[in-house]
């Protein structure tokens, strides 16, 4: 007979979910709480470390280490991680996931793209793209052609799109290509309008949207 969660102290609650997470057995919401605990609670961090040391030593005595060494290792690594750009994985293409509608407004499991899915159904089309590389400068002036004879850089370059799913969301690559071409000028105008105002900004706005390079 397990204790109801409300009887447990937050500290014990953290420890339980860390134990589960260490074994890959935490639910989504437990994992989310565990990650939050890692951020906010030094005791939770110590617990995770303790559990990992226990596992290591169980496997082999010579994996025991001096704890201060473990700590300084992480502190040093943290400093190096802080200067790394945040790496983000390619966003999951919504069409790969089963779409369950209607979605409760207070659903606690945040399935990826929950807030995208329901509207996408209504909208009839969804594309998640890496970006648009819109390399031509402002089009309307005369002479907006390459001064040199070098070949122009490629225009819209995209992450590949997802195939249609059972719900009829279609995003073929040709479709997405056309979509990106269509949107680039709007995105450019949107970004450029952000500069208006009497206040200075640390950075600036480049004339055209030139977002990201495509995934390899």
């Amino acid at each position: 007979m397990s204790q109801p969660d409300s009887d447990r102290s937050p500290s014990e609650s953290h420890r339980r979910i860390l134990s589960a997470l260490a074994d890959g057995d935490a639910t989504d919401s437990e994992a989310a709480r565990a990650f939050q605990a890692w951020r906010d609670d030094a005791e939770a961090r110590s617990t995770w470390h303790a559990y990992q040391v226990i596992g290591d030593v169980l496997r082999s005595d010579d994996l025991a280490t001096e704890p201060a060494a473990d700590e300084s290792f992480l502190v040093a690594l943290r400093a190096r991680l802080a200067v790394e750009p945040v790496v983000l994985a390619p966003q999951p293409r919504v069409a790969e996931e089963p779409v369950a509608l209607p979605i409760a407004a207070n659903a606690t499991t945040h399935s990826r793209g929950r807030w995208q899915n329901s509207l996408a159904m209504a909208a009839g089309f969804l594309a998640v793209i890496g970006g648009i590389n819109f390399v031509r400068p402002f089009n309307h002036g005369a002479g907006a052609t390459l001064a040199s004879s070098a070949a122009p850089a490629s225009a819209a370059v995209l992450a590949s799109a997802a195939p249609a799913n059972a719900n009829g969301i279609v995003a073929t690559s040709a479709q997405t290509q056309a979509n990106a071409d269509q949107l680039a000028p709007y995105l450019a105008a949107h970004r450029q309008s952000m500069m208006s105002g009497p206040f200075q900004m640390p950075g600036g706005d480049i004339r055209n949207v030139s977002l990201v390079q495509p995934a390899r």
Partner: protein
Amino acid sequence: MTMLNPDPDAALVQRVKQGDVRAFEMLVVKYQRRIERLIGRMVRDVDLVADIAQETFIRAYRALPQFRAESAFYTWLYRIAVNTAKKALVDMKRDPVMTYTSLQGSDDDDETYRGGMEPTDGETPEALLASKEIAATVNAAIAALSADLRQAITLREIEGLSYEEISDVMNCPIGTVRSRIFRAREAIAERLRPLLDTRDGNRW
């Protein structure tokens, strides 16, 4: 017959890929000792081992977008560690002070290595003593566990069985497996925590 288990690190890796850099630290804390031991068998200088280990984790972090779950995260990390150490050795091979054992091959299973605790160069007697004390404490605590708890945590950590497999073996619900492993960990951690808390308090 064991079935192929999902990678227990999957949730952590996924979280990092969603932009949570701090979650990567949890993986570091988990694998730092194993990675350092692996590298320590190729490189003797303890400071250099730590440097190469740091480099390994940074390279893993940067390459994470390319990591698809075709192998377990640790397998992938292991290969990065070996490559990073090899590269460091190549870069250093002119240094006459360095001695190193030859690489034993990437199939080597460092999990079952139970050699003596030869100090690597630079490790102080105090550090060695501290780690021996930790090992002794954990072993004593395991011995003091009730049979159920000991079996549960042994099946998980040494045999690598999943909760589902353990519930089969021990003939109990998965919730009980989870609870037993937790209680085993806590019983050991209770003895271990005083040793793990450093002088300066938590710096984690």
